């Protein structure tokens, strides 16, 4: 039935000019034609479609047959597969490119990952063919296509381990490989055009606006892929995985950027080098999304992709400065993939710089202050233990690269802004190490002994809230301060007073040691009373209904038992003992001096 209708309408329209086809003709062709294919009459449809006499109607309406054809081609099981393929290829050549494009893109839209992968694999090549038929008008269509394709790619699960990349169960790697083949002729076109226009003259560009648009669409595409999937995946090094489709894909994207006239150094160093304002229809932000540039920097500096296109003359300090923008962005995100890449990039840049070489004026650059702040967040609240540890390692490395003046400035800044006792304690330990170094023969400097040390010491040897300071909350900081003070009174002889500590001591006693004594006594008294009360309560075995309960997730935590409470209180008291022991030792050492 459908076949008769189809055959009829085609015959009726033979020889008629195509603007005289009625909308009913269109309708019957479409409905009947689709029905034939779905029912399996592809052989007949094929012969009708191939018939020379029918080429006008095929050219005009043939694209409507795409949906059922593509469905069959995706499923690959139909017994009429080869006929459908033949019809499909014929249509690709004969029908209007713009209409074919619409038809193909419609079929690209799929929901489940398996079909997404299969439709991409099937349709990229046809899409390329059709786009190439558009000639000089292809740019915006290419843009639309690339955008749809990437939307589909975003639906595919990403491989994380080496095995997952090898197995490529969801075909993401295959898609990426196909994408490179897909864009190749367009990249080539832009590249050729750039070469030709250089040879002609400086300003004149062949192909004018069209070529600019094409170039821009390819740029947009590369930038998008740098965001996804490339910023998400962990590339494996050649030692781990010799053939890596994702690494190849990344390299090809970088090469594409170079080919279309976006040299990699400019892109990486973009925050610092003055870029010419490029007249175009995309603003800077959209043209060069910050996350994509950060991803690019990571690929170049951590994975050394396209390294041979990168000049080896830039100074390591300049390299660090430029990358700070990218590092800052990556470390400010909460997604762990971003944080990890930020840490890797930072580490790679720091390693290239000599220890003790970075000057203090770098700290006038905003990113040199925001990056450490972001690092503190990573070190203290990131949920992944390995990232916290790595963050600390990179933090220390960054300190080591500063020269002494810069370290001094940095320590002051961190003490002022980190608002975290553990970090403050860590900084104070660093200060101690620097003083120790300065006191060694030959290393004398004005920053960690003498004039400049004292203001720093005053900030360290103090209690944040005076005698009311919560010693348990500030334990790390307080202990490190005490350790530092103890170190100073032992190491710096009274007679030498290189650090100036002995002349400051009376002030420190008033502002630090005495309030600490008071605070210790108060805290100890409080906790001892608590302990006594708790033990009394335990004895009387009164089962108290707690006023509050704590739940994590869906689980209510058990109430703190008396035993654990007692344990906690003992632990607190033990901590006070620990603090006191250092305090006492310091007081002893000072007394010795007093008695001299």
């Amino acid at each position, binding site marked *: 039935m459908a076949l008769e209708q189809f055959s009829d309408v085609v015959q009726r329209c033979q020889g008629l000019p195509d603007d005289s086809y009625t909308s009913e003709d269109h309708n019957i062709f479409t409905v009947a034609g689709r029905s034939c294919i779905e029912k399996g009459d592809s052989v007949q449809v094929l012969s009708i479609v191939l018939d020379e006499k029918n080429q006008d109607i095929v050219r005009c309406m043939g694209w409507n047959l795409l949906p059922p054809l593509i469905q069959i081609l995706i499923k690959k099981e139909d017994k009429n597969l080869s006929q459908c393929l033949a019809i499909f290829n014929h249509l690709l050549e004969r029908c209007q490119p713009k209409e074919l494009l619409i038809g193909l893109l419609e079929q690209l839209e799929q929901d489940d990952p398996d079909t997404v992968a299969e439709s991409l694999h099937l349709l990229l090549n046809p899409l390329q063919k059709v786009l190439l038929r558009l000639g000089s008008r292809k740019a915006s269509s290419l843009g639309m296509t690339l955008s749809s394709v990437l939307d589909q790619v975003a639906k595919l699960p990403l491989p994380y381990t080496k095995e997952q990349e090898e197995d490529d169960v969801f075909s993401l790697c295959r898609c990426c490989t196909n994408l490179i083949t897909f864009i190749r002729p367009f990249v080539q076109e832009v590249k050729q055009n750039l070469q030709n226009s250089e040879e002609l003259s400086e300003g004149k560009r062949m192909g004018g606006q069209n070529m600019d648009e094409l170039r821009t669409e390819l740029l947009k595409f590369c930038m998008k892929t740098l965001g996804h999937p490339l910023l998400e995946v962990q590339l494996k090094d050649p030692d781990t995985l010799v053939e890596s489709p994702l690494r190849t894909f990344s390299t090809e994207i970088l090469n594409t950027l170079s080919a279309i006239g976006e040299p990699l150094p400019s892109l990486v160093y973009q925050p610092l*080098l003055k870029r010419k304002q490029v007249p175009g229809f995309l603003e800077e932000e959209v043209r060069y999304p910050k996350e994509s540039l950060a991803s690019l920097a990571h690929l170049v500096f951590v994975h050394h992709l396209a390294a041979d296109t*990168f*000049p*080896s003359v830039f*100074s390591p*300090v300049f390299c660090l400065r430029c990358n700070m923008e990218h590092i800052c962005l990556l470390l400010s995100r909460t997604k762990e993939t971003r944080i990890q890449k930020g840490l890797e990039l930072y580490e790679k840049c720091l390693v290239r710089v000599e220890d003790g*070489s970075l*000057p203090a004026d770098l700290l006038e650059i905003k990113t040199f202050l925001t990056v450490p702040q972001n690092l503190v967040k990573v070190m203290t609240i990131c949920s992944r233990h390995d990232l916290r540890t790595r963050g600390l390692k990179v933090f220390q490395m960054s300190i080591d690269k500063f020269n002494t003046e810069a370290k001094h400035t940095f320590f002051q800044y961190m003490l002022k802004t980190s608002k975290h006792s553990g970090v403050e304690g860590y900084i104070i330990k660093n200060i101690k190490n620097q003083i120790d170094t300065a006191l060694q023969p030959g290393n004398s400097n004005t920053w960690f002994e003498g004039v400049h040390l004292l203001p720093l010491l005053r900030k360290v040897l103090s209690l944040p809230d005076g005698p009311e300071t919560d010693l348990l909350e500030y334990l790390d900081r307080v202990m490190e301060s005490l350790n530092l003070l103890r170190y100073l009174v032992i190491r710096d002889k009274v007679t030498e007073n290189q650090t100036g500590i002995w002349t400051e001591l009376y002030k420190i006693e008033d502002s630090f040691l005495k309030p600490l004594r008071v605070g210790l006594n108060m805290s100890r008294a409080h906790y001892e009373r608590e302990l006594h009360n708790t033990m009394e309560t335990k004895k009387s075995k009164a089962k108290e209904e707690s006023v509050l309960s704590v739940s994590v997730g869906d689980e209510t935590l058990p109430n703190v038992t008396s035993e654990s409470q007692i344990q906690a209180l003992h632990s607190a008291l033990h901590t006070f003992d620990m603090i006191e022991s250092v305090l006492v030792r310091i007081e002893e050492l000072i007394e010795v001096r007093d008695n001299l």
Partner: protein
Amino acid sequence: LKMAAEPTREWSDEQLKSDDLPKKDIIKFLQDNAAHSFLNEHKLLGNIKNVAKTAKKEQLMIAYNELFESKRFKGSDPVEEATQQVKAVKIEEKAKEVKAEVVDEGPPKYTKSVLKKGDKTNFPKKGETVSCWYTGTLEDGTVFDTNIPAAARKKKQAKPLSFKVGMGKVIRGWDEALLTMSKGEMARLEIEPEWAYGKKGLPESKIPPNAKLIFEVELVSVD
């Protein structure tokens, strides 16, 4: 640096050629009177005995003549000279640009031989943008970097490397050397590791630790 009266020319060409005039004397004269960069270019720096061993009479004669022709006497260098009398100098530079902490200036850690003279008028100043073609090799001849495309035809499409000179954006050897070059000049630079990539090198770019780098640089333009 203002100089006193220009030194007088003592020797004629015949006298220079003659065996009666020892090379040492000519070398001493040149070292006493010529600008540092002049001596550098003509390979006349260092211990007089050593220079005498390597320099030929003809070379010295040419250098002597060129000195009076170009008038590149001491104090005429655009670049500050470090003479032997100056002890370790602490550089107190309150520059806005970033410079690594320098305590001991010492002698420059690079040498320059001019391969092709520049216009000798357009010298870049700190902060100006320069453009260069270059090829970098290690001492063993390995080329680790170049921006000169292999095919001459492609040279039209390639661009020279552009950057602001004297701002610490490139390795120190480059920053220092380019300030002494004029537009159009092509020079061979041999840069000690301290003014290149130092102890660390750049492993991913084939530069080993403590590598002395050799560059052929052509200064194409100065903005």
